[in-house]
């Protein structure tokens, strides 16, 4: 136990004191994400300010009470720059000399068309001087204003027609006769909540866990591979292997040290990423105010424990795999390029299953994904949220079996001379292929 602890402490000291790892894995996420988030926040806020303070120009060559009513609505609701011009061409020239980003042109015939029961056309011109977001958003402000006017104008016209004809009902129902109300059935309970809201809620809260698992696995793989490669690069492995300590203790020490650093890196990443999401998207209104407990899809203590087991077996197998592969590298750079290959089978199921369920995929894709052990880590963490413990346990059994296989391979490599003699370079691969 003392030996194991000594190795773990040594591993942590070695990895944390290495500026590349300290800065790259632990400090960078906690610094770079908030900086990125703040930058986005600053630019978004300035766009918002620009949109709120933006004025728009209005020009018309039409006349009549319908046109006057619309003009009055526009003048009452926003900062409007009226354009007095001889024709549209002149109006557009004058508009480009103002600070306004959009021009509303009420074309000749608007009043007449509407009084004859036809559509009145309004043209909106956006002046894209700098091609920034504030300029393009200015047309959205104009559209919103016109849509609101359009709605109430339509309702008023329907009401007048109903009064004239004596039709029954409400103007709103005649304008839009069908109304949809969404319900969700969750674990047999009917909830008066649209499915999209629940999906958004689950995505926003439960998705973080699989992402964290994947982040941790990726960090851990890098750490474990670096740890072994460092021993080779620093020429300490041979000495280490002749110490009176069992090879299994060395293996366990390396796995544990890498897990500690991976957890630190993941926590740092999550803090930084959380701050980034909060600050970068602070201007976006909340999609839902529901809490995850309100819809009963929160994770229970049993689920939490099972997720813990899933994370543990996932980490151990990924690390054992990384160590087994890194043994063949003679320096840190080669080891890290090897880990790039290892990360791929972990990333693919993570990305696919983030957006869909395994059952939704074509049969062949399902089989391919199910063969990849790390698919089961994602399935299990999702299932834990939905209380499908049988699925979680099934995944744990599969992952544990895989972990034992990988650990056996790692232990075999550690207990034989391969740990010293194994070496593999891309040059070797080329040579072997040529020989064949």
């Amino acid at each position, binding site marked *: 136990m003392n030996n194991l602890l000594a190795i773990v402490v*040594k591993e942590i000291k070695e990895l944390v004191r290495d500026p590349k790892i300290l800065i790259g894995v632990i400090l960078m996420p906690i610094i770079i994400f908030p900086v990125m988030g703040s930058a986005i926040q600053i630019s978004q806020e300035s766009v918002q300010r620009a949109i709120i303070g933006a004025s728009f120009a209005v020009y018309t060559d039409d006349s009549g009470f319908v046109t006057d009513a619309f003009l009055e609505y526009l003048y009452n609701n926003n900062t409007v720059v009226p354009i007095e011009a001889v024709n549209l061409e002149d109006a557009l020239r004058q508009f480009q000399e103002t600070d306004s980003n959009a021009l509303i042109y009420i074309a000749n015939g608007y009043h007449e068309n509407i009084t004859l029961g036809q559509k009145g056309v309004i043209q909106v011109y956006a002046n894209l001087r700098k091609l920034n977001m504030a300029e393009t958003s200015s047309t959205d402000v104009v559209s919103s204003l016109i849509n609101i006017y359009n709605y109430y104008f339509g309702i008023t016209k329907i009401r007048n027609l109903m009064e004239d004809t004596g039709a029954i009902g409400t103007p709103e129902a005649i304008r839009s006769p069908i109304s949809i109300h969404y319900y969700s059935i969750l674990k047999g309970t009917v909830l008066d909540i649209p499915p999209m809201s629940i999906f958004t809620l689950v995505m926003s809260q439960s998705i973080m866990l699989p992402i964290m698992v994947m982040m941790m696995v990726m960090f851990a793989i890098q750490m474990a591979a670096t740890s072994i490669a460092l021993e080779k690069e620093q020429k*300490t492995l*041979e000495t280490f292997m002749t110490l009176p300590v069992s090879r299994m203790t060395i293996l366990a020490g390396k796995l544990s040290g890498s897990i500690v650093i991976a957890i630190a890196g993941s926590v740092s990443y999550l803090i930084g990423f959380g701050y980034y999401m909060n600050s970068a998207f602070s201007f976006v209104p909340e999609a839902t105010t529901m809490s995850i407990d309100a819809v009963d899809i929160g994770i229970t203590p049993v689920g939490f424990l099972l997720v813990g087991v899933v994370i543990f077996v996932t980490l151990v197998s990924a690390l054992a795999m990384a160590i087994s592969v890194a043994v063949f590298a003679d320096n840190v750079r080669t080891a890290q390029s090897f880990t790039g290959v290892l990360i791929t089978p972990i990333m693919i199921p993570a990305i696919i299953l983030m957006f869909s369920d395994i059952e939704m995929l074509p049969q062949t894709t399902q089989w391919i994904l199910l063969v990849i052990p790390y698919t089961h880590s994602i399935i299990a963490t999702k299932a834990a949220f939905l209380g499908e413990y049988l699925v979680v346990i099934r995944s744990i059994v599969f992952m544990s079996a895989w972990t034992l296989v990988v650990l056996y391979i790692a232990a075999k490599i550690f207990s034989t001379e391969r740990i010293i*003699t194994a070496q593999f370079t891309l040059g070797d691969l080329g040579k072997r292929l040529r020989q064949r």
Partner: protein
Amino acid sequence: MRYAIEARKISKNFGKTQALKGVSFSVKENEIYGLIGPNAAGKTTTLRILSTLISPTNGSAEVFGLDVKKHPEKVREIISYLPEEAGAYQQLTGLEFLEFMAGFYVDNKEQRDEIVDEGKLISGLEERLDDKVKGYSKGMKRRLLIARALMMKPRLAILDEPTSGLDVIQSIHVRNMIKNYADSLGVTIFLSSHNMLEVEYLCHRVALVDEGVILAEGSPVELIERYGAKNLEEVFIEVTQSE
């Protein structure tokens, strides 16, 4: 006669390459025994077999009666191995490195501190032991590593090219360190070297090895007399040319 090492017809193949071809020798307790030979002669392979890093393809080797293939963990408790291209953990201080290594040989802190004190003394690095290893010169690193190899007073120290890459002054310092340590504590030392003068100075007995075969064995004086040479270098040339 009790032997620290008994190697019987050990051979080692790496794929199609035969690094050792049935080498036999024995090393007495408290003896300093040297393997000399050119590059790729099989010296490092022999040392790695004795230090349990690799197993012989054929033959057997025993360290103080313990078979290296059957009881590697027991062998590791009584030996200490210094590889030719050994390094130390760059991010640890010299002292932390010695403490880390010492911790594997004893259970309590007092004993560990005694070992580390011995290591400090052997290394002669004094206050530089508080600096990180990454700031050490090649000579300082080698001194730290030799201190690591000898500080726990192993029954057998296996040293591969102990003065490899060192300048003349550093080499003399390291040689004296090994000799004094072996003489005063009676530790058996098995070393390899390219440097014939070093071996002549340090070793009680030597074996001349080339292409995986021992060509001659004896004390430096015996070998020099046997071949009518001025020193071991001439002996080596004589032996390899006659082969």
